[in-house]
């Protein structure tokens, strides 16, 4: 019950705040004199700054302990004062009838107290780059929980479907399917996740940059040029070919040909001496001019297949999605085994035979008679695999394969915190808060799993 409430709260806070923490800050647009630029309606203009979770001043606010932490040294207190924005400092100075310099220099007394209250990164301190740890923990929680829940759901779904199919099919199909699981079990799963993550990352990269597609286009065009009957041997021929190729495309006509011709004109002087090679020259001729011809082709290719434009946020979302799929796609093995065992034993239960004798169609047997009996193990393993997925995500992030900074997750926050732990001056809050959040969430998940299991067990539900 406590676990349920805590988890619900955690989910609500972390996921609910995601739209805010992943929104962009607005920075006022300043002209060269440092004056605010006004937009057409006479309002001060703003441009989109960094993401909220990524906002911070590496010099002024780095490594500030939580505001309520009493043991700060002088230097830290001074930096803390400077972290407060100028307007607030001015306000406090007016209130206390002091100069702003006095306010900034105050490290004791009511002035300092006021300053401390106005410090926005008060709650959990800041990290190495001066970003608010509280905001980062919120975002990180959102990311971690999303990945954990979604990956667990995915793995439970795959595992349930795979396991029950294997058990229901039986015989050779079952044997083959389970041997596949055995083999996958034999591989170190973290390797699989890494492989999947890296591979899909590469695919994604290619999808966005389309480098390979361009490369292939150049290759095949070059090959067809060499082998074509005209044996295009000179730049002119390539140009002729390209203009033929791109005749319908006005854009190419304008851009590429003009650009290429301009270039051609530019170094015409040197080329003039070169006698025009006869049509039908052999492939060597083409190859001798290969590099320059290739450049032209490459230029044409980048017009045909321009790299896709993709926003930073979209790209990050893809990364998270890939990670989630990789974790979910690897951790369904245990689930599949458990479900298979359950289905096998349930299939032999008389009530399944009774359902068949009643004339229930197959899908009804599976969905209405089998699945409800599986809910117990499914729920238990789902709640077990959520923390597992969160842990895996943290581990991968720690290795630098998972969630990539600047996007935070509890895992890479903890990793950053760990790096900051040193005997000279430990910045404990950077390690403690992500870890505490992670640990309590995992604990809560266990409680919830237990609670759900009891709720789903008809024998215990009605004591």
């Amino acid at each position, binding site marked *: 019950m406590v676990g349920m409430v805590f988890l619900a709260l955690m989910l609500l806070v972390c996921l609910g705040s995601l739209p805010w923490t992943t929104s962009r800050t607005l920075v006022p647009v300043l002209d060269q004199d440092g004056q605010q630029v006004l937009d057409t309606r006479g309002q001060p203009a703003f441009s989109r700054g960094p993401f909220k979770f990524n906002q911070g001043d590496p010099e002024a606010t780095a490594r500030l302990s939580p505001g309520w932490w009493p043991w700060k040294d002088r230097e830290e207190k001074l930096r803390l004062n400077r972290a407060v924005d100028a307007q607030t400092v001015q306000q406090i100075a007016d209130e206390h009838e002091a100069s702003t310099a006095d306010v900034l220099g105050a490290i004791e007394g009511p002035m300092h107290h006021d300053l401390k209250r106005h410090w926005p990164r008060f709650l959990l301190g800041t990290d190495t780059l001066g970003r608010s740890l509280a905001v980062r923990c919120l975002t990180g929680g959102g990311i971690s929980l999303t990945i954990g829940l979604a990956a667990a759901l995915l793995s439970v779904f795959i595992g349930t479907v795979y396991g029950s199919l294997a058990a229901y099919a039986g015989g050779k199909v079952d044997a083959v399917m389970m041997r596949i699981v055995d083999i996958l079990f034999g591989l170190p799963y973290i390797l699989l996740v890494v492989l999947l993550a890296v591979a899909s990352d590469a695919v994604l990269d290619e999808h966005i940059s389309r480098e390979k597609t361009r490369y292939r286009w150049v290759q095949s065009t070059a090959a067809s040029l060499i082998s074509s009957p005209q044996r295009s041997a000179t730049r002119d021929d390539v140009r002729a070919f390209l203009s033929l190729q791109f005749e319908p495309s006005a854009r190419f006509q304008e851009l590429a040909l003009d650009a290429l011709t301009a270039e051609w004109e530019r170094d015409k002087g040197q080329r003039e001496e070169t006698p025009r090679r006869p049509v039908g020259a052999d492939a060597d001729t083409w190859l001798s001019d290969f590099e320059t011809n290739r450049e032209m082709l490459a230029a044409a290719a980048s017009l045909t297949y321009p790299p896709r434009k993709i926003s930073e946020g979209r790209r990050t979302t893809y990364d998270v999605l890939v990670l989630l799929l990789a974790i979910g796609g690897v951790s369904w093995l245990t689930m599949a085994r458990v479900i298979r065992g359950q289905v096998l034993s349930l299939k032999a239960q*008389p009530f399944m035979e*009774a359902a068949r004798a*009643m*004339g229930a169609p197959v899908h009804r047997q599976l969905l209405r008679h089998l699945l409800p*009996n599986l*809910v117990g193990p499914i729920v238990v393993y789902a709640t077990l695999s959520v923390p597992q997925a969160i842990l895996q995500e943290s581990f991968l992030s720690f290795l630098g394969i998972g969630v990539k900074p600047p996007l935070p997750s509890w895992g890479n926050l903890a990793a950053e915190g760990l790096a900051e732990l040193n005997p000279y001056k430990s910045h404990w809050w950077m390690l403690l808060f992500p870890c505490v959040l992670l640990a309590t969430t995992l604990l809560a998940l266990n409680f919830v799993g237990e609670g759900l299991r009891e709720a789903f067990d008809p024998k215990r539900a009605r004591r």
Partner: protein
Amino acid sequence: MNTDTQPDTANQGSMASTDKPLMRITDLAVSFDNGKGPRIQAVDGVRLSVYPGQTLAVVGESGCGKSVTALSTLRLIPTPPGRYDRGTIDFRLGDGRVVDLLDIDDGAIRRIRGNDIAMIFQEPMTSLNPVFSVGDQIIEAIELHQNVRRAEARSIAVTAMADVGIPEPASRLRAYPHQFSGGMRQRVMIAMALACKPRLLLADEPSTALDVTIQAQILELLAGLKAAHDMAIMLITHDLGVVAQNADIVCVMYAGRVVEYARVDHLFAHPMHPYTRGLLECIPRLGDRGDRLVTINETIDRPGEFEQLPGARDGVRPWWPWHDPPPDLVRRDEPAGDYALVEIRTGHWVGLWRTAALADAAQGLPDLAWTRPESTAHSQGAQT
């Protein structure tokens, strides 16, 4: 001979309501895959028939194929490992059409399951789904086959529960199977089976797992419901007392074949097959003195037992798998070709070796439309 019933009171009983059999099984053979070894022939050449309103008792030792026969009629044998080798199961539908249950498509057999033919299973404790309330399960059975609304199905379920004698049926609908005793669960199973008013009920040892009192109640309940719904029952049991008390026709099976098939009174009065005689002899009887009962083995170990059939002098011998076949065996070139089910007396079929005397005899098809007269329905079987 052994019972109070007089033999050959052939016309004393009433004829069944129809003179056409409800179900007729011919030459049913089912085998199971046995890994590397040869296939297990669970039943081979089973022939029997059931008439509307009749109770057919199937008796025989454990593993002789009773459950397999019953499951085959609903086509519930898992395949693989099982396989229907041959045979037909002709079933007369409500509209008078006769279909072969082993031959119709999956959708058709599914419509018959639970609707025309219902089954009560051997294990009352586990035959109900533990995660649903009993009401849900009865209602599901109704909704599967009847086009009714939920409220209607609910009231049918309440009636069905009341019919099988569960007190406060309306409130008990919400209870879960584990909150019921074994007897009550068996009643729920019966309520489920009867909710769609099937015309044939397969009762596979409906009372074996229950104590004697509940057992009697359940059987009485079945008898009452049978009369009310005019359905036929195929009652599988080990208990000859139950047979004597409830059955109209008895089918004795051994090692996957029918060894004797006759009216209950005839069978008890004149058991023909040595195995049946053995079965009957090991029933203790009131008034008998003696330290011990006669075992089946003692009966069938007496060679004389196998030479008592009419025509024994011509070489008519009861089929018995543990004996060497008689020397004049004429094996037909077909499965179970060494065996013939022959009507040795009017209305009395016995499984015999296909010896020279029977070389041309056709396989008999047990076919008796007799039901016991109402008056005797509950007066017999005091012998156990």
